[in-house]
């Protein structure tokens, strides 16, 4: 690659970053401003009013340590939704990885008839509009008693998550050499220790990436939570949507920040696994 082309590439990356970051800046200003309307370039007045209305920051005069504790202890809707989203996300991530592990191993290491068909069926939730299957699923869930509760929401989140997790982990196992496990066995390691000492370190980076996908897909899930949860399981996306439709930009911006903040945090800590430089998707391949 010649130098000019390299420069253009770098500028393109900066441009992309700016396009992604600009709206976030607008978000931040909006969340801490009072009535910021069109012709104004910057808001006239900064304010914490939106945060007060979300019951995350106490009213002026009560902003002491006790004031914060009292307010949060009153269990505001935002915190409830945040905890729901986090716990559903973690639970679903762990369950999806446990389910995907054996499936990915078989798909990555073995060749058998109808393998492509099985992969296609497994990936189909990503190309099918969720509304197409969730309405049918809802009827079953109602009759099984899964509708409108936490368990049902977790279960339905697995539908869009599994394809990502299985495919990512299949990639790891495609480059994985099971002889390492055999070697450990002949050296006296039993099956459990072989898994913990040999298999797990090899697939861990890829598993982090798969977990990241799983968590983010669950985190941003609106429609499935809305229909299966039947309004009884409140998560952050539901709260964001209902707030946004109320038409208060400051409030919407504030709650959106709460919504994207954990996602950014997780991306930040796992980015080294996502970039192609680590052995994330290579198993034992990149040794």
């Amino acid at each position: 690659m010649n130098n000019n082309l390299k420069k253009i590439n770098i500028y393109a990356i900066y441009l992309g970053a700016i396009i992604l970051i600009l709206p976030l800046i607008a978000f931040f200003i909006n969340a801490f401003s009072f009535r910021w309307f069109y012709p104004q370039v910057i808001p006239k007045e900064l304010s914490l009013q939106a945060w007060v209305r979300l019951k995350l920051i106490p009213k002026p005069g009560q902003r002491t340590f006790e004031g914060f504790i009292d307010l949060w202890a009153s269990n505001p809707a935002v915190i409830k939704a945040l905890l729901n989203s986090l716990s559903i996300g973690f639970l679903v991530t762990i369950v999806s990885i446990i389910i995907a592990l054996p499936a990915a191993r078989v798909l990555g290491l073995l060749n058998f008839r109808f393998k492509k068909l099985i992969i296609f069926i497994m990936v189909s939730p990503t190309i099918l509009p969720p509304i197409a299957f969730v309405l049918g699923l809802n009827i079953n869930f109602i009759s099984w008693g899964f509708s409108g509760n936490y368990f049902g929401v977790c279960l339905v989140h697995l539908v869009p998550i599994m394809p990502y997790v299985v495919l990512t982990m299949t990639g790891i196992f495609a480059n994985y050499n099971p002889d390492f496990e055999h070697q450990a066995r002949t050296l006296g390691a039993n099956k459990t220790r072989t898994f913990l000492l040999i298999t797990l370190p090899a697939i861990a980076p890829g598993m982090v990436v798969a977990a990241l996908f799983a968590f983010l897909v669950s985190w941003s899930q609106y429609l499935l939570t809305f229909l299966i949860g039947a309004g009884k399981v409140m998560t952050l996306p539901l709260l964001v949507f209902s707030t946004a439709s109320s038409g208060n930009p400051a409030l919407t911006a504030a709650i959106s920040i709460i919504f994207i903040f954990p996602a950014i945090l997780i991306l930040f800590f796992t980015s080294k696994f996502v970039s192609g430089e680590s052995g994330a998707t290579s198993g034992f391949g990149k040794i």
Partner: protein
Amino acid sequence: MSKLNIKNLIKSFPSMDRPAVNNVNLDIESGELVAFLGPSGCGKTTILKMITGLFQPDSGDIILDEQSLLKIPTEKRGVVMVFQNYLLFPYMNVNENVGFALKMKGVDKNIIDQKVKEMLELVKLPDIGLRKPKQLSGGQQQRVALARALISNPRILLLDEPLSNLDAHLRDEMRDLIVTIQQKLKVTTIFVTHDQEEAVLLADKIALIFDGELQNFTSPKNYYEKPKNIKAAKFFGGVNFINAKKHNDNLSTNIGTIHYKGENYTDLNEDNIITIRPENIKLSKNNDFNNNSFKGLIKSVIFSGTHTRYKIIVNDLELECSLQSVGLQDIKTDDTIYVHLPSDKIWAMNE
């Protein structure tokens, strides 16, 4: 010090139309260094994997010191395998790799450290304990893998193609190291190879395997002098084969009667095959031999350094003879020559 008996071992895979291992019987004595020799895909590695327990045989038994291994899980067999590509654990350094087997046994850490040091000295790599496997050369990795395998005093050591991934000069070094260590520790060792020369140089005994079937199990010397069948003879460079019939305590062939002194005469079938190594055939322009001497015509002479190879036609039969180039008689193409097959050097086989 362990003795291994393999009895009627059979293993099939659904993807193959013949059994991968077909009715193999082997008795390996304690402390022996045995080679499994055969072309790739002949089932030799499959047998190793059955000994370690990574495959279960369809039928037959594997007995180590009078005790069947089949019901014992891999990690409790005391059988350690060194794989062809060494498979050092990439997340551990050399010390951790070598000490792995002892750690699995729950040995005290100080003892492990000391033993690791001993093993690394044994394979002549004392100062690399803190390196990661990818920082080592192929030869070093191989030696670390050997140290890792030997640290727990295995009852059987299995080596899968131990020299195939090494350069020529490293190969000689590694071969010497394997022999030295094996003799020092007296561990019963089986190694797999497709290289006939490697097997001859290393092994006390060679098991020759073709298409899943054991052809012959004997010392390297016997493969040259007393092969069991044509396949075994050919694999070890045998080129001269003469069809023969039993006749009055001798063998009659279409080039004439051949006197035979081999101890297996009574075991021979009516129809059998005579073989002789090219280097054991003698040539003379004058017929100065007593028996087993036949008149032939030189078809070609090929000088190949220390030896010169002759192809001789005797009664439509082509024989190949290899003589030391030093002090050679002047023999040219189309010369008439007398070919002598010394009766103590010829060997007859059933098939």
